[in-house]
């Protein structure tokens, strides 16, 4: 079975990536010109306090020992305590990571659902008005600055039309007064598990505007890539052969040409998913979304190194897993991929 061997090989490579990033994160922590003991000891620490923190953090042990301690802590999910808030980082991640993942998955799905079919249809009508309009929209959605689009959507949908909430992950009535029991951390899933359709609808409404904002860029890129890949594929002889067999235009476009053209779109979707994990800081701030991007950007400003390290590791793992999924998807769509 080629495909199973292929997946196993990918998984081994992914493991190497994770180990490499662990090493990198550790190295950076040593090189950065700030004393973790001083930061850990709190504001305006005395010399004894710093010395005590140094012992507590085990900073005097030799580097290899400390790397092993660090790596095994990362592997077991023991991310330590934030220097700044003194909270357990693992607890923070349990709150922030699902919020960000929910947004990233949802916006990636939107990007796929809009970008790919539009690219297919534009390619089928190459050079005509539909193609021109779709291509222009794609350029616009790529070029539009995120913060501007976010505010534009807020202005139109919550200010003028009043059909969408302005910001937040839920309304106050759901979020504070009557919170949904947290099982997975994904509000959409948890509210369904709790059998509360109203809370589900509320969470969904809150999700739409930030997800649309975040989907804008990848949707535009996916559209352009799908379009150009489709134009190339539609010239191929097997498409002419399919037409000669009398297959319908729809069947040819989506059943025969699209599977050949999915590669580039899948790649860009994988990359934009990774970007959505931490690069969505602006979107998270504008929509008051309690996500990872905001969490880590605050940590960076406070030189809160354990948080930065934890988020880096978590994002790396998410990214590696996403890439693995994309690779497997590529191999499932095109079995020849697994042969190389």
């Amino acid at each position, binding site marked *: 079975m080629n495909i199973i061997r292929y997946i196993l090989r990918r998984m081994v490579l992914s493991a190497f990536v994770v180990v490499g990033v662990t090493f990198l994160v550790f190295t950076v922590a040593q090189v950065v010109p700030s004393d973790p003991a001083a930061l850990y000891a709190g504001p305006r620490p005395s010399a004894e306090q710093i010395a005590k923190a140094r012992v507590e953090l085990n900073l005097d042990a030799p580097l290899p020992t400390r790397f092993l301690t660090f790596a095994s802590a990362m592997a077991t999910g023991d991310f330590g305590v934030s220097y700044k808030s003194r909270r357990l980082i693992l607890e923070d991640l349990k709150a922030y990571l699902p919020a960000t993942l929910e947004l990233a998955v949802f916006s990636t799905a939107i990007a796929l659902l809009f970008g790919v079919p539009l690219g297919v249809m534009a390619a089928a009508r190459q050079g005509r008005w539909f193609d021109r309009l779709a291509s222009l929209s794609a350029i616009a959605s790529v070029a539009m600055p995120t913060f501007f689009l976010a505010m534009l959507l807020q202005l139109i949908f919550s200010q003028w039309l009043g059909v969408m909430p302005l910001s937040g992950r839920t309304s106050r009535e759901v979020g504070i007064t009557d919170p949904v029991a947290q099982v997975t951390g994904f509000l959409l899933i948890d509210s369904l598990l709790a059998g509360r359709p109203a809370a589900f609808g509320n969470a969904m409404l809150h999700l739409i505007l930030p997800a649309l904002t975040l989907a804008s860029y990848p949707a535009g890129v996916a559209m352009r890539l799908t379009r150009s890949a489709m134009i190339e594929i539609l010239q191929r*002889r097997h498409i002419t052969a399919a037409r000669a067999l009398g*297959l319908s235009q729809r069947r040819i476009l989506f059943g025969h040409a699209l*599977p050949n053209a999915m590669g580039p779109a899948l790649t860009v979707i994988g990359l934009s998913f990774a970007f959505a994990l931490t690069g969505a800081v602006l979107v998270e701030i504008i929509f008051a979304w309690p996500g990872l991007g905001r969490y880590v950007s605050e940590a960076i400003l406070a030189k809160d190194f354990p948080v930065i390290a934890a988020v880096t590791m978590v994002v790396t793992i998410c990214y590696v897993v996403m890439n693995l999924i994309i690779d497997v998807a590529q191999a499932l769509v095109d079995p020849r991929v697994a042969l190389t």
Partner: protein
Amino acid sequence: MPLLEIRGLSITIPTPKGDVRAVRAVDLSVERGEIHGVIGESGSGKTITGTAMLGLLPQGTKVEAERFHFDGEDLRQSADRLRGNRIGLISQDPAAALNPVLRIWRQMDDVLRLHRKAPRAERWAEAVALLASIGLNDPEKVLRSYPHELSGGMLQRVVIAQALATGADFLIADEPTTALDVAVAMQVLELLRQLVATRGLTVLLITHDMDVIAEVCDRVTVLYHGRSLENGPAEQVLQRPEHPYTRALLAALPDAAPRGERLATVEGLFIDPETGALLQGDQP
């Protein structure tokens, strides 16, 4: 009445650099149940004539003809309906003619579903029977394979099976053996001849290969620069060609050349730009 009747066909393709007249004056008449060869060098308009019969030319292409009829119907109006129902295509390179990312079953079933509303198991049985009937061993395994897992000869049989599944009685075979090695090519030609005999098919065989014509064709039409120059029974055209171009073409076969001498080429012929006639001599 011939099954396919083409008189005075001309095809003009618009390009950014101006119109290209790919076909100027083609006459072609194919009787039911024959294998009719169309022979010519690259650019003679043979493939584009076939594409026009399927109605698959690029948009904006002008197709003009005195007669362009298949079984009494004008192909300019009805090609879209006849294609995939009565007219099928077997194209040059079977590896390129099949979708690389879909299993053979999907590609067979796409055709079967169009024509019969039968449950999946029945369609599967039908596909198996069809593949077996054209000489594929282990058809179930073939159906479960992707194109890159099969050989060229097997793929060409699959392509032929697809065309048969449409129920077509007229096949346009565009260089069906060019991409295959000689032994497999002969098998495929033999299969075509069998199908003509057993299923009453009619085949238009487009080729540049004199051996293919000699092997299977009943009649043959010679194309050159978008014109049909000569037609007749294959034997007659090959043995006693009337047109100087056909003579030159036959003389250019490597087999015909005496040992130790340079190979002959088709020279000393040109098209008169005014009248369109083919003249002998050097281009003025």
